[in-house]
């Protein structure tokens, strides 16, 4: 029984690093050293997970470190490491960074646990652990009123949806008589089962910022510091998607209407997200709406309800999160207005070319990560005979090129602007930073590498192509 506990070693390491980060003033190198330490430990945790193998359900069946969990945990820990590396170089705007390091690591440990949760209670605790530090990160700067307001709105909505979801979970437990995913059976619940699933869906969809519960995301993100948004909008999402595949796999057999509901939410998210992103000039808002759209793509494969669909969903969650975080980190360096990126190709060519890689991946251009991610998503939906959804997905992907290429045009064709236009929001950085640059390069390499290594990665997730 105890022999399998080394599977938790990555989480233990991350939590230990988070606790150490709280005492950052006693660590060598103070704040910067703390961030480096966090980055190294998170990277180590990612490697441990990636090469750690999988296992059957353990700890009384409450967690299952299977292929999906391994992929999602690696993604969570790896992205946290990249984020911390960037923070080590650039810092948090206006505040010291050691608490941010601790918060990010706590959120990462929650996300890693969430990815392998096989029990309603574990899922709820891990979900809260992965999102609660996010509120603090969003309102990190105590004198920044828009940031605090964005954080409070995010907090209130997130807590409301948590409780709605929890209310649904209480019925799921009541009908099934157990909190283990493997024992969930809603077919006996009748109308109560439908209500339970609807409540759970409302909560989870709102957390994933899927339409029609997405309206909080652009507002909340537009208030936060871009560096906080980079973390909050990506890392918890990977874990949330991973646990959704597990939970929906458990409840789907008892609820025949689930695919249709998910497909409708997917269609609505893709259309609303992509159309609303078109006129945005604030990169945070643009990426928030693009996040809504990408949640739509993810829900498409969740609606398919096949194991291939679930694997494609988790694969795309990571393939989306890497470039999305990188774009927000660049916004944190250059400024959050689209015009702040003007002439980036001339002032910082390598950043502009990396941005191009990320944006092309988000659109879904081969051979980048996003292309294969979308290919598998659409393939899973086609296998489930949801042709209309795939057509909608392809059409909205083409529409999404519209706003991503606006960013590209700004970088490559516009004249460089005043540069240090609004140093007031702490976003504009001119100094060189080797570790921040490394973080961005890592994101670009990962975006290409995930695309090139798509089939071995998918094989590691349990697909035989």
């Amino acid at each position, binding site marked *: 029984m105890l022999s399998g506990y080394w599977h938790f070693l990555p989480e233990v390491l991350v939590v230990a690093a988070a606790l150490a980060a709280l005492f950052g003033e006693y660590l060598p190198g103070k704040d910067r050293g703390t961030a480096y330490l966090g980055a190294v430990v998170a990277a180590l945790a990612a490697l441990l997970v990636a090469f750690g193998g999988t296992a059957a359900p353990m700890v009384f069946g409450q967690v299952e470190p299977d292929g999906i969990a391994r992929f999602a945990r690696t993604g969570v820990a790896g992205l946290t490491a990249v984020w911390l590396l960037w923070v080590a170089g650039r810092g948090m705007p206006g505040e010291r960074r050691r608490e941010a390091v601790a918060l990010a690591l706590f959120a990462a440990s929650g996300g890693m646990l969430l990815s392998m949760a096989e029990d309603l209670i574990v899922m709820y605790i891990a979900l809260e652990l992965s999102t*609660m530090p996010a509120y603090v990160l969003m309102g990190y700067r105590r*004198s920044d*009123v*828009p940031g605090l307001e964005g954080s*409070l709105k995010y*907090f209130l909505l997130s807590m409301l949806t948590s409780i709605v979801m929890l*209310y649904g979970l209480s019925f799921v*437990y009541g009908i099934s008589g157990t909190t283990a995913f493997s024992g969930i059976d809603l077919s006996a619940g009748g109308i109560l089962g439908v209500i339970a699933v609807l409540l759970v869906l409302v909560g989870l969809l709102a957390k994933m910022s899927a339409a029609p519960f997405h309206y909080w995301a652009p507002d909340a993100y537009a208030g936060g510091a871009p560096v906080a948004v980079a973390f909050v909008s990506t890392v918890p999402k990977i874990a949330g998607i991973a646990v959704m595949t597990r939970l929906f796999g458990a409840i789907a057999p008892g609820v025949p209407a689930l695919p249709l509901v998910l497909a409708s939410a997917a269609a609505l998210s893709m259309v609303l997200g992509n159309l609303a992103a078109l006129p945005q000039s604030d990169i945070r808002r643009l990426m928030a709406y693009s996040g809504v759209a990408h949640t739509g793509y993810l829900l498409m494969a969740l609606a398919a309800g096949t194991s291939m669909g679930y694997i494609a969903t988790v694969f795309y969650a990571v393939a989306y999160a890497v470039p999305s975080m990188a774009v927000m980190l660049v916004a944190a360096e250059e400024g959050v207005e689209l015009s702040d990126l003007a002439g980036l190709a001339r002032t910082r060519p390598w950043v502009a070319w990396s941005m191009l890689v990320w944006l092309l991946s988000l659109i879904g251009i081969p051979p980048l990560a996003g292309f294969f991610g979308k290919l598998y998503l659409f393939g899973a939906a086609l296998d489930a005979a949801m042709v209309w959804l795939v057509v909608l997905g392809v059409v909205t992907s083409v529409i999404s090129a519209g706003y991503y290429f606006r960013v590209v045009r700004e970088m490559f064709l516009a004249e460089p602007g005043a540069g240090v236009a609004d140093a007031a929001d702490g976003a504009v950085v001119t100094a060189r930073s080797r570790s921040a640059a490394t973080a961005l390069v890592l994101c670009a390499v990962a975006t290409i590498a995930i695309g090139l290594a798509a089939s071995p990665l998918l094989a590691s997730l349990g697909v035989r192509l």
Partner: protein
Amino acid sequence: MIEVGPAAFMGLAAVLFTLGLYGAVARKSAVMVLMSLELMAVSVNLNVVALSRFVTPTEMTGQVFAIFTMVVSAAEIGLGLALVLAIYRQTRSIELTTMDSLKG
């Protein structure tokens, strides 16, 4: 002797939940919204404990679930109040309607 079944508890929980939901959506003061959210959390706990008693009377699953959700919601309320306090220090107001520096 009146028999009190699971429906009574679930009905009470539903009433509390609806009251809380109404408060969370309709109230303008951030503190009142937090209290309404707490009311909803309590209704969930009631639901879980009652279901545990009637569905799996020999196990403590529901009670354990309720303990965990209580701790989590206490932590969340603490965090929420800290945020409200931080905003109050800056703007001298906790009315959600005055928080319009972000417009979607």
